[in-house]
């Protein structure tokens, strides 16, 4: 009896926990598939299921623009940050550039609340007339992705990497060659995973876009937030919009699993 309980109790707790996590997600998918009236019915009715809301959001809201803005801003800012961060992380890990103080500075940059940065950035962009442009959002997102990527990538260049490179140097490779032809290819899977995480960080970012964007440069999170106020209580299309904006993140998740822990723990855990 006792042994059976020992085996079953964890499964009961884990099942209940999993259901609590899943319930809101399942419910939102269901609402997105019902028609507008059924979505409000309490007690809930299944009604007829269909993809109307998904068509609706593209027809009635600038959903394509939001999606495209999110995508362009996340791709461009990650594409700029990733090579730069890779080079800096390498110099931290292998050459101890700047020592402990510089590393602390990079960590602190990552920990800064965006609200502290957004006021000055707003002031600067106002001054140079770049508010409401995508450039300002890309620059602002660099302040999030660059420190994150630099910090995360350091651990990929530590450990056995040094010996591989030394072998290459003995064979006559320059420092530059050792970095480009040995270190980067060996760390490539980690660099790629870090890049995907950087993409998601930018994809999810809200405050900078809220303050710095104009009508044409809004991204998905800000668009969704405005949808909620403009469309009042139209929960069916809102649910559909939510589902669509979750898709890229869920699609990337499987590719991240191996390096997720490193990313979340800021490299402290493997």
């Amino acid at each position: 009896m006792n042994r059976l309980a020992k085996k079953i109790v964890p499964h009961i707790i884990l099942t209940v926990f999993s259901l609590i996590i899943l319930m809101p997600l399942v419910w939102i998918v269901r609402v997105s598939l019902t028609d507008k009236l059924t979505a409000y019915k309490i007690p809930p009715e299944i009604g007829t299921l269909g993809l109307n809301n998904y068509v609706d959001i593209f027809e009635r809201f600038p959903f394509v623009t939001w999606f495209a803005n999110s995508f362009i801003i996340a791709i461009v800012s990650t594409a700029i940050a990733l090579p730069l961060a890779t080079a800096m992380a390498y110099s931290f890990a292998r050459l101890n550039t700047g020592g402990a103080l510089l590393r602390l500075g990079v960590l602190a940059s990552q920990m800064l609340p965006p609200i502290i940065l957004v006021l000055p950035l707003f002031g600067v962009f106002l001054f140079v007339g770049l508010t409401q442009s995508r450039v300002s959002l890309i620059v602002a997102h660099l302040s999030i992705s660059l420190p994150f990527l630099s910090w995360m990538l350091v651990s990929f260049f530590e450990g056995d990497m040094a010996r591989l490179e030394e072998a290459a140097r003995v064979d006559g490779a320059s420092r530059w060659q050792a970095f480009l032809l040995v270190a980067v290819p060996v760390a490539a899977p980690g660099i790629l995973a870090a890049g995907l995480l950087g993409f998601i960080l930018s994809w999810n970012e809200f405050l900078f876009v809220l303050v710095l964007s104009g009508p044409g440069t809004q991204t998905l999170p800000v668009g969704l937030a405005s949808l909620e106020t403009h469309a009042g209580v139209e929960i069916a299309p809102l649910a559909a919009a939510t589902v669509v904006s979750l898709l890229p993140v869920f699609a990337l998740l499987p590719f991240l699993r191996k390096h997720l822990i490193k990313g979340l723990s800021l490299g402290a855990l493997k």
Partner: protein
Amino acid sequence: MNQSKTMEAADRRFGWFMSAPSLALLLAVILFPVFWALFTSVHDYTLIAPNFDTFTGAENYISAIQDPAFRHSLGLTAFFVAAVVLFEFLLGFIVALMLNSVERFKPIYYGILLCPLLMNPVIVGLIWRMFLHPSLGIVNYLLTVVGFEPVNWLGSTQMAIWTIIMVDIWHQVSFMIVLLLAGLSAMPKEPYEAARVDGARVYQSFFYITLPLMMPVIIVTLLIRMIFAVKTYDLIYIMTRGGPGVATDLVSYSIYRTAFVSLNVGEASAMSAILLGFILLLTVYLYRYMRSLT
């Protein structure tokens, strides 16, 4: 000797060369804005008169600290951070221990709990707002089905902060689970076997083996979560806008309001600087702790 010295110098040059582009960019997008904020915090700078004509010294700081609303938001943020970190840790540790003890279905449980992890707080907030709607939400409906009174989740001053805490737990508990589980699965097996041979009970091996060995992982996880909880903004914006009244007015949102509703950027910058102090303190502690581990 001489040659190794020139090698060292060349290495150092190469290192600076490699990090120079990033450093230049960080200077522009992090350091410069931080200094701008500090500079603004000692001037009378508003969005109506955005200039540095009037130097005010510590005036913005004094009026921020004397402002009951700001003090309230600092206290509320401390409470919020303590509550979410504590509950997420306790719940996360239980789930991580359970996950570590099962073999069957483990990938399924793990796959499910990964779902909220990288979700946008804006989306989390929107989903839960619909879910918790007082009359149209499914949660209140289910409560009445089982015989409870419906709850005014976000409209009541007492309840709102707890609702935010609850939603944050739903969103972030997976972070704790994933990291704590990583720590648990990296633990050596030998001490447990030795303890079993010596007749130790389950709770004894937990308190005398698991907990001490897990301490570094626990501290790093708690510190990181704590720093990120201090920054909570999106959830508040979407779910309550700091309300009802100031019941959920966390510090990031309070700064936002001061700058963009009251248009007083000078005072908002002073508030930012105070927040910056707290964050830096936590970060230095985290950094020193991480370094002491390696």
